[in-house]
């Protein structure tokens, strides 16, 4: 075998063997990875719409998924909204829960973020950030309270708190939520949330 044929044969064989190994590994782990993702979403829905017994996706778009959360009697108890958007450094993925009329946010949870550790990354901290998102009124649109306050009582019902030193991260979270709320409202008005089980 001359050198050129040998080079081609060796590279092809190496490529084929590694491709084969990878497809086996891919098949073996795919199910498990999908399961992990589902579990994460399930846990998040249970957190943002307490009392959820079952759920179904009503709308699935690129950066927005609306889940209908149902209670004991299969009645609609709220929407869990999964949204993605740009943060200060990278994409923030979050989920928040609303009541069925879209009047109020129950609570918020952050699924994925790469904000600055120690500053922007506080958006995942209950004490520093998430607690100020509980029971917010969303009819007039949410606004950011700046400078930050220490207790929830000082906030108006439609205000959320800023993280000192991480205004942009706080603002970005708010932007993602306001934008997705707008989309969800327009979907609801067009009756898109009712169909599709």
């Amino acid at each position: 075998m001359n050198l050129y044929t040998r080079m081609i044969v060796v590279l092809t064989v190496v490529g084929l063997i590694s491709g084969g190994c990878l497809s086996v590994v891919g098949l073996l782990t795919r199910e498990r990875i999908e399961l992990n993702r589902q579990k994460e979403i399930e846990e998040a829905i249970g957190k943002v719409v307490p009392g959820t017994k079952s759920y179904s996706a009503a709308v699935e778009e690129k950066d927005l998924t609306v889940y209908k959360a149902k209670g004991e009697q299969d009645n609609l108890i709220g929407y869990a909204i999964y949204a993605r958007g740009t943060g200060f450094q990278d994409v923030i993925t979050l989920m928040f829960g609303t009541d069925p009329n879209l009047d109020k946010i129950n609570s918020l949870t952050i699924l994925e973020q790469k904000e600055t550790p120690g500053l922007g990354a506080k958006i995942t901290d209950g004490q520093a950030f998430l607690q100020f998102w509980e029971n917010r009124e969303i009819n007039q649109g949410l606004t950011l309270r700046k400078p930050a306050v220490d207790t929830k009582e000082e906030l108006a019902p439609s205000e959320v708190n800023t993280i000192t030193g991480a205004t942009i991260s706080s603002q970005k979270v708010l932007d993602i939520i306001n934008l997705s709320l707008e989309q969800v409202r327009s979907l609801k008005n067009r009756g898109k949330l009712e169909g599709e089980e």
Partner: protein
Amino acid sequence: MPAKSIGQEYMKGLWAENPVFRQLLGMCPTLAVTNAVINGIAMGLATSFVLILSSLVVASIKKLIPNQVRIASYIVIIATFVTIADRFMAAFFPPISKALGPYVPLIVVNCIILGRQEAFASKNSVGRSLVDAMGMSTGFILALLLLSSIRELLGAGTFLGYQVLGEWFKPWIIMILPAGAFITLGILLGLALLIEMKTQMRRA
């Protein structure tokens, strides 16, 4: 150069040829993921897995690979093991996989791995390559462990997530930011050089 014993072959990775402190290889993961001890350990283990298995494969098929396509073949072999490690972590350790983010796929271009294939596995027996890869892996894990312990302790007051330093301690946020990585690595490299110089002086 006289042949090294198997023990020496292993030990050289720990200090004399430590990939991080002496060869300055694999700086990207060293700086990027050592903000918490658990991330450092996970990155160290994933890299070791890739390094040991690629060294084994490369050392066993080195005679079949024509010199002209050796780098391409090594990269394909390394990339295969990296992808296996990445999928495995995503399937069984999702939180760690998330924390390490893009740095697991980036093991492909970690110079320690390609460097060992080129400098050692392609020229030595399977047994020696295995020992060499294990030594280098241990050296890399120890370096990441040291760096991440310092950074987590000073940056968050914790070790492996457990509060170690008391309430009085105000975390130095800079230590978990990229700047803290450079500062810590710089100080450690300086110390390593100092120790090396002291031992050489004593020998002389």
